């Protein structure tokens, strides 16, 4: 495994987006992972539509009544991958732009830009997460966002952080050691793309220390593999 790795350096990550005041983080985590997988499968980096997932994906976990994707009221990346598998794929952002509110589904099957061929769940082992990241592209992860409301930069490594997950983000890379601006402390860290715009965190990104499932970051990790789609 390389000591440092960042999919942004390999052209597999689109620009930072902004979910606005809508609980649709799960859809950004899903599209970010599929954008990376599609890039690895086709060499084409294309921004995919979160609004299609917000409006159209109401996939439920068949084993748990009531745990369905619900647009601005929350969802789960694995349910969203399941939805994308079933309907054939996801449209481009520009064909189905983001509004940040729950709307009527306007999915157009003829405009599918990327398709899911399968998705997997990675074990809590952080070396396995790094290996899957390098092999399959950016990963959809859940995290506890308690410390993110006041985060400005550096490597976050709170002494106390719950592991119940309440936010969906995208794991795009990792670093061997990060110096925090205030204190010179070396911390190996994950590089996380968030969906709160570029003027939050480090240009829209969050760094959290690696190795102890801090804030639950290693406990809900999914990889997705994209199918080759003949461009429409």
């Amino acid at each position: 495994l390389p000591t440092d790795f960042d999919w942004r350096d390999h052209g597999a990550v689109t620009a930072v987006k902004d979910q606005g005041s809508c609980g649709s983080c799960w859809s950004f985590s899903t599209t970010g992972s599929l954008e990376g997988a599609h890039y690895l499968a086709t060499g084409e980096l294309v921004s995919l539509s979160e609004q299609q997932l917000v409006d159209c994906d109401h996939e439920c976990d068949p084993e748990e009544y009531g745990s369905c994707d619900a647009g601005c009221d929350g969802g789960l990346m694995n349910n969203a991958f399941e939805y994308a598998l079933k309907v054939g794929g996801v449209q481009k952002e520009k064909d189905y732009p983001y509004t940040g509110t729950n709307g009527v589904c306007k999915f157009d099957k003829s405009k599918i830009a990327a398709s899911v061929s399968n998705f997997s769940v990675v074990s809590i082992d952080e070396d396995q997460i790094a290996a899957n990241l390098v092999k399959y592209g950016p990963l959809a992860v859940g995290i506890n966002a308690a410390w993110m409301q006041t985060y400005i930069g550096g490597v976050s490594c709170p002494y106390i952080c719950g592991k119940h997950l309440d936010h969906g983000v995208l794991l795009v890379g990792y670093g061997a050691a990060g110096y925090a601006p205030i204190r010179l402390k070396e911390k190996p860290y994950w590089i996380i793309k968030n969906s709160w715009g570029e003027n939050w965190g480090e240009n829209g990104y969050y760094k959290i220390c690696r190795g102890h499932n801090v804030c639950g970051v290693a406990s809900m990790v999914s990889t997705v593999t994209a199918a080759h789609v003949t461009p429409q």
Partner: protein
Amino acid sequence: STESFIEQVSDDPLIRQVVSDSVEAVDQLLHAEHHFSLFKAKYGKTYDTQEEHDYRFSVFKSNLRRAKRNQLLDPSAVHGVTRFSDLTPDEFEKSYLGLHKRRLKLPVDAHKAPDLPTNN
């Protein structure tokens, strides 16, 4: 435990300048008002009524204290005023998070990724 932890961490042994509480309180208020003005300008924040403005300022002061506490408990990061500093933690969670919080269960098509070699 968090509170007692903060007392330990923030009760530093250095001799502090002794000022009367009221002077310090005024100073802190001026400090908070200055930060709030910068915050409103930077993020283009406006509030419909004076009541709403005063309420948001009180939330902002509370978040300043939270950022200070977070800095103590998360020293390798930088914490401070962000675009969410006029939101209560509940408002922030409702509006900007959105992961269904429930027992981790997986849809029928999900399967466990095979272990990959991680050395060499």
